[in-house]
């Protein structure tokens, strides 16, 4: 058995800190704790910290530091006092579940044995938490899709899915930000932009934030800047 955390040197410029292998709140909590400690007190030469589900990548400038020094600094932060977490921000996002926007809604209902309304109700009943950004700019991976809606991704990705689609796979949910391929299931469309034009706050979520969805009408979706 591996004793966590582990520290794996990566190339000439990073260390991967692993707290486990699973998608689990307790493990992700340890990722966020180290992320906080590094934000508060970045080791000399650190370039950036990238939190994911069960691990955190710490990149550094090899002209300033090295793997051994960085790993010692990471141990030092982990062994030090905890920092109070900022209370997570909460976001309520409207979603239009009309079938032309939520093009997989009917299929998801068939595959889960639920009615279309029950799929929508299960999706809006859950609370989601922002675990990480990945894949593409602004793609925030939300965990919290209820077990009754959890489906494996499609066997092949579908091209050119527009921005603003609400998609699910397994326990995860994403509001897309760019036209991209996806093999996830499309439930609806959200008029709120995650990738914003605001230079002061270009991304709506921080990792650790919580999200809930509520149903909006087509008229409200269209009025709110449909894309």
């Amino acid at each position, binding site marked *: 058995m591996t004793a966590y955390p582990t520290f794996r040197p990566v190339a000439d410029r990073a260390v991967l800190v692993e707290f486990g292998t699973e998608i689990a709140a307790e493990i992700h909590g340890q990722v966020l704790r180290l992320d906080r400690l590094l934000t508060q007190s970045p080791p000399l030469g650190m370039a950036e910290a990238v939190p994911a589900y069960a691990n955190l990548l710490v990149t550094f400038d090899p002209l300033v530091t090295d793997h051994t020094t960085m790993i010692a600094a990471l141990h030092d932060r982990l062994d030090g006092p905890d920092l109070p977490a900022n209370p997570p921000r909460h976001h309520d996002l409207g979603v239009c579940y009309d079938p032309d926007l939520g093009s997989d809604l009917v299929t998801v209902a068939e595959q889960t044995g639920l009615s279309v309304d029950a799929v929508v109700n299960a999706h809006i009943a859950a609370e989601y938490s922002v675990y990480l950004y990945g894949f593409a700019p*602004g793609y925030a991976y939300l965990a919290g899709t209820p077990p009754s809606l959890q489906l494996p991704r499609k066997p092949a990705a579908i091209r050119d899915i527009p921005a603003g689609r609400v998609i699910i796979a397994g326990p995860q949910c994403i509001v897309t930000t760019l036209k991209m391929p996806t093999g996830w299931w499309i439930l609806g469309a959200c008029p709120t932009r995650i990738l914003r034009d605001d230079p002061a706050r270009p991304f709506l979520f921080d990792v650790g934030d919580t999200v809930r969805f509520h149903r909006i009408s087509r008229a409200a979706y269209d009025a709110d800047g449909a894309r």
Partner: protein
Amino acid sequence: MRCDLKVSFAGPMVSLQDAGRPGLMRFGVPQSGPMDRRSLAIANTALGNLPQATGIEISLGGLQLECVAGAVSFAVAGGGFQVRLADRSLGPWTVATITEGQRLTIRPGKWGSWAMLAFAGDLQGQSWLGSRATHSQSGLGGGLLQTGAVVTIANGDTRAAREGDLTPFDRPAPKAALRVVMGPQDRFFDAAPQDSFLGSPFTLTEAYDRMGVRLSGAKLPVNAALDMASEPILRGSVQVAGDGVATVLLADHQTTGGYPKIATLIAPDLDTLVQRRSGDTVTFVAISPEQAIRAARLAHDHLTAYLDDLAKPRASLAERLMQSNLISGVTSGE
């Protein structure tokens, strides 16, 4: 002086690039920036610019610009491209000045996949998150150059003292192995695929763009049922998909992925890899993390020395040479 350059032809994947946007991987944003970062620094330094000023990255598709107003000095570096200005052939790494009515054509030459074109002035372009580097999948940032567009250089300058061909930075021997540090998920591969990765040649396939390059060669089977939670990716990761095929992730890589990474290239050797072309063959050699740090520092010193020399205007270089000749003339007489 303002200088306008009409894009009379741009191939695919010709884009504006600068240092990129580091520090945003936590928001899903890769750094982007030039595929060959060394060459942007060289082209800019040869003009007396800051090393990471915005330039144009030219793919094998090539680029033709026509100066429709003003004049500006420019530099080309990276790869062995064919550079023609008006009806004159220039060296592949060169500084020259384009004036109204002239055409500049940059096309693939004997080697290399990417050339960087820099200007003595401020290349105008859309900025996104503090950088004009183009993120190719979204087109955010300065963007891809399209035939018919006009590129504007604000505060364009002509720098006659800097004109002339450049001595290219050492081109690594074509057969030199690319240096990797194994991992971070090498444990998902048995000894046999690890040996094949290090012991056999891989060919760059046609699936080569700013996101990555797929390799063909020995299959690298993964030894465990793959159900990895997505984790952060570093530029240079050698990611192996379920079919045992390796892809090296490059400038516009996705920031997380669920496939294991057998090894990761060190940064200086990435600039070398990207200049290879589809069909070219590469090999990999494993070094320790300590050796990787030493290699990165040596590569930095080597490039810095080259850039320091390049930063000196030619005229003063000639003067210094004359001076040193005079001195050696005196000393050799003793």
